[in-house]
């Protein structure tokens, strides 16, 4: 076991700009807090092992441990991770009046899950002023209020941690790959606590290439949009090279070359584009802005999608083979880039006691990923 405490977490993750602000360590205890997208330790905790470290998606994530737990097989390093099916999907007629971005698949699934009581609360990400903030909602009609990409880290998992204390037992979460990795680690009960209960019943993962450090983005947003109020954010697919910010004062385009330097190091060493540890993963569908790509990974995910289709919350159609191919290439390239970077920085499979790894995976898998991924 490579589980340590809060001091090591600060040294190994926060101080190295590896923290993506996912919120996994927040609200577990009084020591870690998140404010404006940044996680801070208020006081050092003296425990040698803590859930803060154990849950962190950037501290000693052993991919084999997770894969064995979820897929009953070692980690294979395939571009999209384990899945049952990949489809094109969009919100169905039941979602007609709701506001959402692109296909609305995520909103549709969470709405149904709340309505049917599959989950008793949903951890989503809202926006407060310019900052992404987490929200734990219990009413289906509040889902659409949180719709839309934020492109910046939110401590969404903090409301899961708080929800556990508040007694929620079947929470759903919509999160980025790092957040879903943290949830996966939570589910393994890494500290073997007697009082452990898996309080997360549904995980919907988002496709993510990177997110932006909120603190660094805020001055840029202020510069570009002034006092206007943000209503949405989007990043059109390549080769557009812009972020579009939709405000009450019109659309503002920010060149990606100004955004990319604001990405934290933690995103650059992330090998997961499609949220491989989710029940279902959702992203854009290239060339069809009203549809999503939907990856179904687990039985629970499969059942939810089926119910959603049957009851008019979701429409699906087969994913064109070309789209799947492009998705795999993009995901494989992210894996390759991230793992090379992590390896070169000494953040993989470390052996020295005082040097913590971001990730652990079998060397032969690492080699395969680095060798086989290529632009096709």
């Amino acid at each position, binding site marked *: 076991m490579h589980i340590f405490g809060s001091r090591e977490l600060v040294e190994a993750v926060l101080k190295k700009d590896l923290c993506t602000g996912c919120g996994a360590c927040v609200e*577990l*205890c*009084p*020591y870690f*807090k*998140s*404010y*404006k997208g*940044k996680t*801070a*330790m*208020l*006081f050092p*905790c*003296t*425990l040698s*092992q*803590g*859930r803060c470290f154990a849950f962190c998606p950037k501290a000693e994530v052993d991919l084999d441990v997770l894969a064995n737990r979820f897929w009953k097989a070692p980690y294979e390093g395939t571009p999209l991770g384990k899945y049952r099916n990949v489809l094109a999907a969009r919100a169905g007629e039941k979602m007609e009046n709701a506001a959402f971005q692109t296909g609305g698949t995520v909103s549709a699934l969470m709405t149904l899950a709340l309505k049917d009581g599959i989950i008793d609360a949903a951890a989503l990400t809202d926006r407060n002023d310019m900052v992404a903030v987490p929200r734990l909602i219990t009413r289906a009609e509040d889902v659409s209020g949180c719709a839309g990409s934020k492109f910046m880290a939110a401590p969404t998992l903090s409301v899961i941690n708080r929800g556990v*204390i508040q007694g929620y037992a079947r929470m759903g979460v919509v999160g980025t790959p790092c957040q879903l990795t943290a949830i996966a680690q939570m589910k393994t009960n890494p*500290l073997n*606590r007697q009082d452990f209960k898996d309080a997360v019943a549904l995980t919907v993962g988002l496709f993510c290439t990177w997110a932006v450090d909120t*603190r660094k983005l805020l001055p840029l947003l202020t510069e570009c949009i002034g006092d206007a109020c943000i209503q949405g954010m989007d990043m059109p697919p390549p080769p557009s090279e812009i972020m579009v910010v939709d405000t009450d004062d019109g659309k503002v385009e920010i060149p990606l070359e100004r955004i990319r330097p604001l990405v934290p190091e933690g995103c650059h060493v992330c090998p997961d584009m499609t949220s491989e540890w989710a029940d279902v993963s959702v992203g854009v569908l290239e060339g069809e802005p009203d549809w999503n790509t939907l990856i179904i990974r687990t039985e629970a995910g499969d059942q939810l999608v089926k119910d959603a289709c049957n009851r008019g919350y979701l429409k699906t159609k087969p994913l064109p083979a070309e789209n799947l191919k492009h998705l795999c290439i993009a995901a494989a390239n992210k894996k390759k880039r991230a793992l090379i970077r992590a390896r070169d920085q000494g953040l993989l499979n470390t052996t020295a006691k005082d040097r913590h790894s971001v990730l652990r995976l079998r060397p032969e898998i690492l080699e395969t990923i680095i060798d086989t991924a290529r632009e096709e």
Partner: protein
Amino acid sequence: MSHLLEAKAGDRRLLMGNEAIARGALEADISVAAGYPGTPSSDIIESLARVAKERHLYVEWSTNEKVALEVAAAASFAGLRSICVMKQNGVNVASDFLLHLAGSGTRGGLVLVPCDDPGALSSANEGESRHFARMLEIPLLEPGDFQEAKDMIKWAFELSEEILNVVMVRSVTRLSHASGSVVFDSLPETDKTAVFRFDGPYLDPMKGPVLSLPVTIMHTRQQEKLKQAVAKFEESPFNTYIGPETPELLIISSSVCHLYSKEAIHILGLTDRVGLLKMGTTWPLPPKLMENYLGLTDNILIVEEVIPFLEENVKILAVELAPQIGIKKFFGKKDGTIPTVGEMNPDLVVTALCKILAVENDGVPEIYTRRAQELFSAGAPQREMTFCAGCPHRASFWSIHNVLQMDNRQGFVCGDIGCYSLAMLPTGFSTLKTLHSMGSGAGIASGFGKLGPFGFNQPALAVCGDSTFFHAVLPALINAVHHRSDITLVVLDNSGTAMTGFQPHPGLPVDAAGNSVPAIDVIRVCQSMGAIVRICDPFDLEQTQQTLFKLLERKGVNVLILKQICTLSPEKKAGKNFEMTVDEATCIGENCGCNQLCTRVFKCPGLIWDKQENVSRIDEVICTGCGVCASICPSGAIKNKEVA
């Protein structure tokens, strides 16, 4: 009736040094007393305030030490006797006026009493007021015991009126705050009338305008006054010698150090070999008297605290007197025989004497040492300095610290002098990152807040107390507003000058003697400067933290007033707002999820860690029922029930 007035002439009473000084002032028939609170000096003004009505005195706690000296000077200019009291660094504050006052001279007797704090027992410095006497050319007296503390004050008033200038009488902690027997003299019964005369000839010291100009004439006059004082010092009863006619070694000492010297001579049985010259008039030293005693022997040891003030002055005289007294060998601070920091004590003098005279010290009996060691190892537990149970400062710094950590821009707090100075320690979560004189936190923050053009982007905060706000923060705050500095000043308003014993200040509707006076409103003062002002109860952690977050986003000068009366204040001491309990079943204890936040980090003395049961408990005797620990408990195990 105050015990200072009860006794008759000839009665012997046990008095604290500061009370002896106050009684001396009463026997000298003063009319006005002014000062600013500061340990170890505060009891003098307090003692005088208690008898203000009966003795027809005007007594005030002034806004700061400079104003106090100005108030006392006005009485002197109007022909009354007045005393001005402060701690050592107060003289620094008053010194600009003191420089000019020493130049203009005084009329009614004016005695300035600084109480120094060698060893910094209650200070953030070991400042020395003695040097101001030399630097500003005024006479300096140092009482050596409790009787002298009273008698010397009377004598100082006479001297002041003889030379028409201010006289400094310097006390130290171990004199001010220890007690000894004092024989009282009578209290005069006189009618006094205050008149300021200014229409006489320009240079008439009693009837003309009071000025330090023309400088060369007035300066010459001031130095002549000092010579007059020296002439009086030659005959002063406060300079005494005990010892053989031809000692092997002469100790020259002053203040409480002469008592340590006396004890050391006694312990070592050296009364036949060592003489002790106790100087009460330490600046300027009387040369004829010094010539007599320096002539007794060739070996001189100077025993005093902190900086070698007496030592240097004696050495200068010894050089001047060398043709008469010959070459001397000196022991003291310069050669390392006596330390230059911290307090003196008899042991240090014993060590010095053993070294100089090559005598053996039997030291303390072996059995004493052994028993002391036994007791020590059984020992009292190590204790850190801490805020009191229920102290509003603990709650205030909890919020400030946590907000700055979460804000995560390397924000910091500049501090100054008050109970809240402890926030440099874990009890205040090590939140203070600079600590200097009163008001300096605000001034330093004002400077930090202008470093933006040099890439500085850390939030700069300052804290001050309510009394300090008036004392020295106002100019700094005005500076910050005027120069568009970006700072947040947190006024820790606990409704009194708490650290020194709840003396009133301009923000309160009562004065030193208990009279009703108009209170100055901190909020309106700050608003009128153009600062944004917010007021919170520091016990409401959530509201305080949300308010502070918002202020940290604002450019310009923000003032957050955290208002909660000091837990030890007479008004509050009796009652509890909440009855606190711990639900043992809910307490997470040392497990992941809490790890003793309340007893390991928050550390209010009203909380106890029960190691056996792995739960926190409330110490009902110490707990003041502020309720704050219930707000920090992550599991809700600490519960507060409102006391009806």
